[in-house]
């Protein structure tokens, strides 16, 4: 029965109180009670704070309903605070909903920040039992799977060492292995793949993929890493402000999610953002925009088109633009300049720049924009500098190297494929 419903949420909501939750002491509470009885103002309330603000409610989840069938791998995406983790907490029964119902069919294995159940004094082996028991496995089940777990975790030589001596990578590998081998019908993962080295990440993804397709388990996966979502899931649920805004195919869902992202615009106003010390102010960049785009996301070899609107205070010849690609952490990656053959008329002008970003690795980037002219003697005269003119996202499809690109290891440039020629030895 493959269309059996495994998780069904009906109108689920979760309410939190804003402000300091539970941060009261008994004395404050008694003072408040006393004041209420005497009909006075709450003495613990800060001046200027309205009575309403203190008791204000916040709906982390607001009427969420969905049904997930057996063998489905569902990705849950949304911005920080959209309610993803709250939803998982409700499904794993860490906290109870304020309203609505969730029906579950079978056991739930959660990998929310794996390894939290580890006790530092116990050895790896003892912790496997401990963690397995916390996740609901019985002793005999763990006995059966111990060898598999140890093999998968790649920490066999250290299995009888207390985990407080482990490196953090070993710690996570062991914890993931325990959770991955739990015989549960439903597997829940929250960003667990952010840790561990590349090879292990890939191994985990494969294991999860296999769990869904071969073993028919239901996988719920939360991540901000769209490439792993693409790789693992066959359906996504997009949450925004506690509500489901999309439920369906992966590509459409990611599109929906990235569109509603903040920080990425299609038109950037450069007013007040000009920097640079030796500018002659003969030219002012007004706006930078991505024409024909809903969202600044570029795939594979697609060139990045930038429309730059600027105002010149006089006629300028041999004008050129230079863009510097930077990471979101402001690390410069590379530069591209246009030939100095533009000519600006006095007044408003527009130029269309096309940047070939084929070599750029998947990730989020910013552009620095410089307008300059080549002087008669070959010296450059800088007119205007906008340090962070605009931002965009580069996405790549295709082989798994591109999907799992880790820029902290491989940098931000994808060099052309290595050529290899077999030659005779000697």
């Amino acid at each position, binding site marked *: 029965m493959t269309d059996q*419903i495994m998780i*069904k949420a009906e109108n689920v909501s979760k309410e*939190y109180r804003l402000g300091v*939750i*539970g941060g*009261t*002491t*008994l*004395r404050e*509470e008694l003072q408040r009670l006393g004041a209420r009885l005497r009909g006075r103002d709450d003495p613990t309330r800060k001046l200027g704070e309205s009575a309403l603000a203190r008791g204000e409610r916040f709906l982390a989840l607001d009427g969420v309903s969905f049904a997930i069938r057996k063998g489905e791998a569902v990705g849950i995406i949304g911005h920080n605070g959209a309610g993803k983790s709250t939803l998982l*907490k*409700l*499904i*794993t*029964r*860490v*906290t*109870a*909903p*304020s*309203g*609505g*119902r*969730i*029906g*579950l*069919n*079978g056991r*739930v294995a*959660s990998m*929310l*920040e794996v390894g*939290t*159940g580890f*006790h530092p*004094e*116990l050895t790896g082996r*003892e912790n496997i*039992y*401990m963690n397995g*028991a*916390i*996740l*609901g*496995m*019985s*002793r005999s089940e763990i006995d059966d799977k111990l060898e598999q777990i140890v093999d998968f975790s790649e920490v066999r030589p250290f299995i009888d060492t*207390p985990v407080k001596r482990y490196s953090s990578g070993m710690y996570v590998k062991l914890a993931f292995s325990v959770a991955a081998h739990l015989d549960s019908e439903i597997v829940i993962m929250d960003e667990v793949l952010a840790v561990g080295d590349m090879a292990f990440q890939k191994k985990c993804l494969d294991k999860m993929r296999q769990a869904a397709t071969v073993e028919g388990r239901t996988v719920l996966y939360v991540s901000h890493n769209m490439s792993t979502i693409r790789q693992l899931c066959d359906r996504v649920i997009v949450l925004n402000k506690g509500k489901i805004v999309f439920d369906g195919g992966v590509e459409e869902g990611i599109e929906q999610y990235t569109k509603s992202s903040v920080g990425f615009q299609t038109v950037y106003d450069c007013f007040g953002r000009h920097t640079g010390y030796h500018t002659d102010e003969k030219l002012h960049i007004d706006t930078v925009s991505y024409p024909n785009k809903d969202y600044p996301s570029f795939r594979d070899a697609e060139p990045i088109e930038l429309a730059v609107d600027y105002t010149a205070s006089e006629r300028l010849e041999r004008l050129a633009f230079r863009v510097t690609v930077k990471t979101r952490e402001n690390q410069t990656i590379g530069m591209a300049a246009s030939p100095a053959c533009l000519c600006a008329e006095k007044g408003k002008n527009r130029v269309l720049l096309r940047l070939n970003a084929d070599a750029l690795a998947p990730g989020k980037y910013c552009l620095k924009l410089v307008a300059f002219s080549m002087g008669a003697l070959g010296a450059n005269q800088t007119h205007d500098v906008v340090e962070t003119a605009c931002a965009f996202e580069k996405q790549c499809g295709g082989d798994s190297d591109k999907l799992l690109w880790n820029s902290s290891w491989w940098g931000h440039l994808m060099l052309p494929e290595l050529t290899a020629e077999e030659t005779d030895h000697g």
Partner: protein
Amino acid sequence: MKKKTDAAENFTTVISSEKKLFDLRLGELFRYRDLVLLLVRRDFVSKYKQTVLGPLWAVIQPLLTTVVFTVIFGSLAGLTTADSALPAAVPAFLFYMAGTVQWSYFSSVVTTTSGTFIANSHVMGKVYFPRLAVPVASSLSNMISLGIQLALFCALYLVLALTGQAQASPDAMLLLLPLVILQLMLLSLSFGVIISSLTTKYRDLAMLVGFGLQLWQYASPVAYGLRLIPERWLPFYLLNPVTPPLLLFRRAVFGVGWFHAGYYLLSWGITLLLFAIGVLLFNRIEKTFTDTV
């Protein structure tokens, strides 16, 4: 959150906001019995890891306390060790040890279980398992220490009896001993659970535990005999639910002492009432404590 058959689909688990007032879900706890056993093991193993003497500490602590009590309260202060008008039948050392062993069990269970939610919030905030497993496990792991200490107590008692220093004659009351242990277990668990439930919101109580237990010890006949308490204060003094089981223990093992069925039953009544309050609070808190802790 209990097994329930839905009209349309059969869900093994249904999560909703409903709360049951008195629902311990012992069945679920039983299914997680391996976890309880592992927690007991963890408590016990991690407590004595990297110590030279290991579980010997479970013996050294009460022994030293008993020595101190014997010297200070017995020899220096000269407090009575008699619970009734009859003269004490055993040396003061055994008398103090009987009280200390029970009290150390009681107070260590209260101390460890009162931190249940806060000390384990990092695990409980990530994974679901029956929350009751933690206090039950710490109660059981302290039971192991109690067992070791009682064994030592019996050994000393036997030596003293054989050398003729103890004229005590235990009687059929010994059969009530399991009840005494059970009552101490329920009492300490109830107190611990009540405190742990309240500390998820009010941290003040956590401050009170160590200090309060110290005061409480002096309000219980641990370091002195019941004869010390003036007759007219007895009705109030005996309201302390720990007192009757402590006295019954000494009465049963020494054959001399104080026992009053009325007060004993009253203490059971108080124990069960506290237990009910504990269960009520625990059920109220456990589902959503991660939001407030």
